[in-house]
């Protein structure tokens, strides 16, 4: 049946050559390579659950009176948008599960995107030839954050309305063009009738379409360039080692999709998220109790909270306070992310292609920089809970805020410096694992041979492919086609070529390409 269908298609559009290479394509497997996949599958879940939600959500701020099944709100005046979300949650069967699963999937997507970005950064996977995919990936993160924020704002509840008000103020704070941009985006002075319908179009059409296109580009580039891999005895810049797409990798990847969906839906059923009915409808002059935004904008909120009361005013113009923490900080962070591969190449002079990943210690400056930036964002994220911390520690909000005003600029560089010392010491000590490194090595000047000798460590051997005893063979398979095999008896590694070849010469050529320095034994 499948073969008949395949033949039917191949007769019309061809593609059997591509299908053959696709089925036998090798994918390196490591748990950290699943993070991007989790983000991808979260997006699929978001589309599936989101389409369901669009059938019930009404993106209108027209006033209405709630008459639904949730008693505390009955008889209240609210927007159609808010009413439809409350109704979806209480009066539509399976509506709440779908809505909450959608919200949890957004968290999963953004969370796994951030972890994926960290993995790619700290392993140097963004280096040539993958700079383009790094740019695509950073853009995907920005788009995911944007869609998280717009989606969070759609229900027109009190909490998200306040978030929108703050966002309006941030846009307004941009020098020269801020007022115009804010009026064009929001339709006029806040709160304008236009904003909810506009957010809806942005949230369900414009951004998801951009995300879908960029995911396609991202995957196509991964496919075309082949995945990076961690170093290993059998790994080279010139090869890929792992299971074949069909059937092993496909079955695991499909399992991951179902697992992501399962977790998100279970959370959607069991763990309440964004209970808009408790916040009440948005009214511009009302505020709820001190409350937190969704976590993925927490770092921005934290920056706004702890930034000192500074602003610039000169010649009758001003750059108001929220601009610096709310616009400048994210611009610098994402600008730095976009530029990083090019800055690193410029400062290290390393412009060569890389397919094997770095360990954190291989590039102490990069690792230290990453730790600095990461701890800066994490501390801002914690600062967004300054009121909760004040409550928890029985201190005044002012005290906690002052602590963050000092900690946020001071601690990340210190952590970065410490990381640099740790990484250089780790690299010089030659310890295979972090735990095996003598602690005193960290305290000594990095790379100082004498100091290292004094703690009983040896400088790391120059890393390079080990060929001792390994050999390549080319052999005729049962079907008369040719295959090749890499054998490393010392490490008990035996790898077959993922595909077969028409001639012995072609098989030998590919074997030499994959392991240029390993001797080839022609026939067995």
């Amino acid at each position: 049946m499948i073969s008949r269908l395949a033949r039917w298609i191949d007769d019309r559009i061809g593609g059997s050559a591509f299908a053959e290479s696709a089925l036998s394509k090798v994918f390196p497997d490591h748990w950290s390579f699943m993070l991007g996949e989790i983000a991808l599958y979260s997006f699929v879940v978001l589309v599936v659950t989101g389409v369901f939600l669009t059938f019930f959500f009404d993106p209108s701020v027209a006033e209405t009176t709630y008459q639904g099944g949730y008693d505390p709100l009955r008889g209240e005046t609210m927007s159609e948008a808010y009413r439809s979300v409350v109704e979806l949650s209480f009066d539509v069967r399976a509506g709440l599960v779908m809505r909450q699963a959608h919200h949890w999937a957004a968290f999963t997507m953004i969370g796994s995107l951030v972890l994926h970005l960290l993995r790619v950064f700290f392993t140097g996977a963004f280096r040539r030839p993958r700079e383009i995919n790094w740019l695509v990936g950073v853009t995907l993160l920005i788009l995911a954050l944007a869609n998280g924020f717009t989606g969070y704002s759609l229900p027109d509840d009190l909490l998200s309305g306040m978030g929108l008000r703050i966002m309006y103020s941030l846009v307004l704070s941009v020098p020269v063009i801020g007022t115009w941009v804010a009026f064009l985006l929001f339709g006029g002075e806040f709160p304008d009738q236009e904003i909810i319908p506009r957010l809806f179009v942005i949230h369900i059409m414009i951004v998801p379409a951009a995300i879908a296109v960029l995911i396609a580009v991202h995957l196509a580039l991964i496919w075309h360039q082949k995945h990076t891999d961690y170093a290993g005895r059998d790994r080279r810049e010139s090869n890929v080692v792992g299971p074949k797409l069909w059937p092993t990798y496909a079955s695991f990847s499909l399992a991951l999709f179902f697992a992501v969906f399962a977790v998100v839906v279970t959370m959607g059923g069991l763990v309440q998220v964004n209970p808009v009915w408790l916040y009440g409808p948005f009214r511009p002059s009302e505020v709820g109790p001190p409350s937190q935004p969704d976590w993925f904008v927490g770092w921005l909120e934290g920056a706004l909270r702890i930034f000192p009361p500074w602003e610039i005013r000169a010649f009758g113009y001003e750059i108001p306070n929220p601009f610096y923490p709310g616009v400048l900080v994210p611009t610098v962070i994402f600008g730095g992310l976009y530029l990083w591969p090019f800055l690193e190449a410029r400062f290290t002079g390393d412009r060569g292609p890389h397919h094997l990943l770095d360990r954190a210690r291989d590039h102490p400056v990069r690792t230290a920089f990453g730790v600095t930036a990461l701890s800066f964002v994490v501390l801002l994220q914690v600062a967004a809970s300054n009121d909760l911390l004040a409550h928890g520690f029985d201190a005044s909000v002012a005290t906690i805020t002052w602590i963050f005003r000092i900690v946020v600029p001071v601690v990340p560089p210190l952590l970065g410096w410490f990381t640099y010392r740790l990484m250089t010491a780790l690299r010089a000590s030659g310890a295979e694992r972090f735990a095996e490194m003598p602690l005193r090595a960290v305290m000594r000047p990095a790379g100082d041979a004498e100091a290292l000798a004094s703690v009983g460590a040896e400088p790391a051997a120059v890393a390079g492919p080990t060929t001792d005893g390994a050999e390549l063979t080319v052999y005729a398979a049962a079907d008369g086609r040719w295959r090749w095999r890499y054998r490393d008896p010392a490490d008990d590694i035996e790898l077959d070529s993922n595909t077969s070849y028409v001639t012995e010469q072609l098989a030998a050529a590919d074997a030499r390409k994959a392991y240029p320095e390993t001797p080839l034994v022609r026939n067995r």
Partner: protein
Amino acid sequence: MNRGRGLILAAFGASMAASIGVTVVYALGGQPQIEGVLLGVALGGIAVGLVLFGHRVLPGGHFVQARDVVPPTTQRPEVAASFEEGAEPIERRRLIATAFAGSVALLGAAAVFPIRSLGTRPGRQLDHTSWRRGLRAVTNAGRPLRVDGLDPDSVVTVFPEGHEGSADSQTLLIRLPGGITPPGPRDWTVNGVVAFSKICTHAGCPVGLYQTDTQELFCPCHQSTFSVPEGARPTFGPATRPLPQLPIGLDDDGFIIALSDYTEPVGPGFWNRP
């Protein structure tokens, strides 16, 4: 192999049972928690089944595939030649090429203008609110207020009469306790009652919390704090400017009215704020 097969079948079986369960729960009226758990089992069962299948039944082991360290660039000269061959006649007709580029650029510029329709012209909209001389300060429900209708040391959110709920006009009426001199010009206050904009000058949240022991207004968003006796001067947090004060007086019936609009823009700062 057999134990593996049994587990795999059990996982898929659990999934099927849960799917049937979801259908039953849905038909009986639905229940979010049970729906979530059953859908989780239905999807998770497939995930577990596939993982076990991949590990225990499918052929394991790794394969190796050669890769190009740098992509082959053998075709590059041909590409350059093809492009230049095609570009040559265009280059010889400079004027036409320029005219084409010009029309595309102008079309692009013209296409930008509809964006202007997305919003009203800012003009000086942000400088003004709906307050006018003589407008009564009323609650959100439209009730006008007298001084003796305000509890001492309390705040009430008011709007200009006829503009109840107006976002930029929201104002706090505060009756200060005796002994505290009201801030601002003398004729902007009435019998110890002062009026300040409720919109935080930092990021625009309503400054909703009033601390009676210190007569401070507190913004729940970013914790800017404003001291009312000192003219709503910011004493903590990111806000840099005081909350603007609304001049108030009494009309002939003894109700609180505005004496004018705010004399400066309310809310967060912007580039050309006067």
